């Protein structure tokens, strides 16, 4: 269903109560608590990668600085701004859904997905440039630009794992946002599952937050 075919005016919102819950409020809180606990485990996963990058920086500053300078600082900064804007559109989707504005919710979610896609395209271009500049030490068949600084390969490998894992999370996020935008466009969705948009919003903001740590840890510190 195209966004223009969706009713513009406010529709009823609510949550269909599952049998294990007594009230809508209880179900809303349980859903958010579950998401927060999962996000905490995700934070642990990413924290290990950040820690590896910081330790390599501390132990081998002479090797890491040239590697960090090879990263595309401008693309990293632009991508941070893109994700900040996507968080705003996600907040817009949440507020629109709370007000029952079905079309507005769908449009905000589409904008969010579009910004997420722009991030991924920029990241893909950055990977291409890295490949072009021989900055992929894990490719045994291709010479590595900083082969004379073996410790830099550890940092660059960690960069690919951290940004690749973040990219995987973002790709999943874009897919879920698009599917949910399609669902929101269908009659009665906001009346039964409005809280799902808020839970998805937590995930999206968290992806944004993780990138806010990735950018300084990999691109910025001690350039």
């Amino acid at each position, binding site marked *: 269903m195209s966004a223009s075919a969706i009713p513009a005016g406010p529709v009823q919102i609510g949550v269909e109560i599952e049998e294990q819950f007594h009230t809508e409020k209880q179900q809303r809180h349980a859903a958010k608590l579950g998401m927060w606990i999962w996000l905490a485990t995700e934070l642990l996963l990413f924290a290990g990668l950040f820690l590896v990058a910081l330790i390599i920086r501390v132990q081998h500053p002479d090797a890491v600085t040239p590697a960090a300078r090879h990263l595309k600082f401008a693309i990293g900064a632009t991508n941070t701004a893109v994700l900040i804007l996507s968080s705003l559109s996600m907040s817009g989707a949440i507020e629109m859904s709370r007000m029952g504005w079905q079309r507005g919710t769908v449009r905000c979610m589409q904008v969010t997905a579009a910004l997420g896609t722009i991030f991924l395209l920029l990241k893909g271009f950055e990977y291409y440039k890295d490949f072009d500049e021989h900055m992929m030490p894990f490719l045994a068949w291709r010479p590595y630009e900083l082969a004379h600084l073996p410790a830099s390969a550890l940092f660059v490998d960690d960069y690919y794992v951290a940004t690749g894992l973040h990219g995987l999370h973002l790709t999943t996020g874009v897919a879920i946002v698009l599917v949910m935008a399609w669902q929101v466009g269908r009659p009665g969705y906001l009346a039964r599952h409005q809280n799902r948009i808020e839970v998805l919003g937590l995930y999206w903001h968290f992806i944004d937050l993780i990138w806010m740590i990735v950018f300084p840890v990999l691109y*910025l510190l001690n350039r």
Partner: protein
Amino acid sequence: MTADEKHELRRRMRPPAFATLALMLLLAVNVTLGILVPFRHVWIVETLVVIAMILTVLLVSMELPREPPVIRFFAGIGFCWVGFLVAMTLVDYLTR
């Protein structure tokens, strides 16, 4: 959308809009520091800016203060626990 509804939407969107503005400004500060590197220990300022950005997302975008105590507790525990782990590990490496 009526005038009242527009007013209501503007009222609701004010915090996320201010958060976006603040995050962009903080990003601009860090990017400028990253380009200029004005002094040797600039990483301390950059780290403080990142902490401010994280807090902005947690408190405004993720609406943590509006959540019930149990959610605030688990969210707080999650971030503080990771903070302790990272800090303890880095203290070890930085003081060798």
